[in-house]
């Protein structure tokens, strides 16, 4: 791309308020996760019973929980967990789903029918239910919950990809490529995929947010990350019994989840505005 084009791309990014806010929040969470790998303000794994339920102070900015662990540190370390789950689960859904969707659009006929009916079938189960089913079969644990969420993501991407790819297949430039003797694989890679990429990227950010929510829900149910690894969902779970005595214990992880989901959704919205060719490339 020429210089002017990339300039206008950056200026379009700067102009989209939701992209800026969403990007900032997402960036902040990423920084938290990275920092927590090396340093946290307090301890996360050590149980210090005498320090339980401390109110916020200089030592513990957000206080401590019922085992005397530093809440801020746990939140920061929990970010790692959420981001890993998001990235891995979305990647599973993205690669398998987009691949299946592209295949369905290119092959049509019974291949398309089979892929779409399978995804209808998996859509029939609520996300959490299917995740519970998968963890029930494979056993609870961080990795299994990631796989469960990832599998749930496959039909989402498969449907979206197939829908948008079908629209591209109907375009005249695809017809022109066929008239040039290009086979379906090269048309898919050269014409279809680049033209639907922006839609997929936007969906990926939204699925990322949903994956974080799903992971929190699974952990809350005790099917996700196992102790002593901190996770936002498990923090909520542990706070639940103390809801009326120490409400703040539930508020902190709840706020973290809300912030992450909010930030990613804004980012997705902003990306949609920026990447939408109808807005950027007016005839």
């Amino acid at each position: 791309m020429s210089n002017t084009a990339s300039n206008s791309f950056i200026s379009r990014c700067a102009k989209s308020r939701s992209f800026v806010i969403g990007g900032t929040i997402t960036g902040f969470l990423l920084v938290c996760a990275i920092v927590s790998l090396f340093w946290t303000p307090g301890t996360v794994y050590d149980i210090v019973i005498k320090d339980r339920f401390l109110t916020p102070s200089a030592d513990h900015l957000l206080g401590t929980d019922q085992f005397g662990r530093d809440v801020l540190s746990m939140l920061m370390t929990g970010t790692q967990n959420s981001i890993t789950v998001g990235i891995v689960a979305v990647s599973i859904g993205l690669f398998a789903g987009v691949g299946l969707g592209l295949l369905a659009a290119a092959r049509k006929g019974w291949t398309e029918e089979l892929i779409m009916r399978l995804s209808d079938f998996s859509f029939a189960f609520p996300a959490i239910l299917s995740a519970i089913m998968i963890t029930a079969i494979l056993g609870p644990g961080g990795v299994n919950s990631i796989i469960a969420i990832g599998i749930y993501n496959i039909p989402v991407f498969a449907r979206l990809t197939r829908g948008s790819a079908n629209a591209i297949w109907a375009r005249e430039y695809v017809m022109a490529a066929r008239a040039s003797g290009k086979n379906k694989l090269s048309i898919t890679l050269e014409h279809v995929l680049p033209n639907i990429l922006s839609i997929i990227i936007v969906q990926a950010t939204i699925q990322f947010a949903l994956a974080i929510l799903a992971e929190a829900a699974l952990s809350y149910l005790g099917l996700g990350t196992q102790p002593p690894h901190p996770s936002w969902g498990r923090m909520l779970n542990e706070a639940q019994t103390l809801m009326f005595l120490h409400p703040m214990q539930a508020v902190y992880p709840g706020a973290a989840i809300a912030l992450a989901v909010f930030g990613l959704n804004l980012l997705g919205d902003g990306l949609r505005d920026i990447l939408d060719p109808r807005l950027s490339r007016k005839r």
Partner: protein
Amino acid sequence: MTKTVLEVTDLVRHYPLPKESLTAPPRYVYALNGVSFSIEEGKSFGIVGESGCGKSTLARNVMALESTDSGSVKIMGKEVVGLSFNELRPHRQHFQMVFQDPYGSLDPHHTVGRIVAEPLAALGRLSRQEKDERVAEVLTSVGLKATDVSKYPHEFSGGQRQRIAIARALITRPSLIVADEPVSALDVSVQAQVLNLLRDLQDDFGVTYMFISHDLAVVEYLCDEVAVMYLGSIVEKGKTEDLFARPAHPYTRILLDAVPQPAAGKKRDRIRLSGSVTGQTERRVGCAFRDRCPMATDKCAEETPALRQVEDGGHFAACHYSEEMIQRATA
């Protein structure tokens, strides 16, 4: 002796309609009902007709972009119908296509160089340098700059985009170019530029055109021979001069009369056509045009008129009353 570049014989294409119920008999859209014509090297063959007459279906079948029900399409003497996509690939360099919509036919994510070079894939391996040379050469021949290769389609106007599309069709030095309404999306002043370009390219490279249009004036300007299609069949064909001067089918006459004339002066006398194109979902005995034809008689309902020669010099028409039509036109 002149070489025949394209020979289409009795081409049939019926699209199945979704069934209304499991037990209902299958229904079809009769898009092409046995179309035959041939084009000689270096000539332009025009196909005119209203929307839904099957002219775009014909283009896609000639280009082997969809499966044909029956009939034969020979390009440069080689049968195209029945070949698999991969078997056909090496042969594709001989026939290329230009599409109607200059906005829809170019991938917005590809550079002009990449778009124009696309058909070269069918030629097998070419060196990078050879590719670049051919792209530059073909871009200059359609009136664009060789430096335009790195630009994107959205940086060009409609007319320039259609030049890019023509360059893409020319790059394999094909014998036949199928052009489906190549100028109907363009403004008048730009349309003239593209029409002249198509003419010049024919003079320079000797390409053969199968030119599809709904605009009779454009066809008259560009084509040596014309076929008029109605409901999936050719109802009249012949040399452009003959056909336009002495239309032998009432439908041709009506089409010619319907074109508004940009001239001072009062209204012309003409036959007006009532009704619109009827469905293509049923097959009937008799002339397909009889419901709208001002000359229709009982004979038209009983006997399907065959395409027959009505005048010397290859003027064919499918009407029981062609001789009367010609007489009336000469009188």
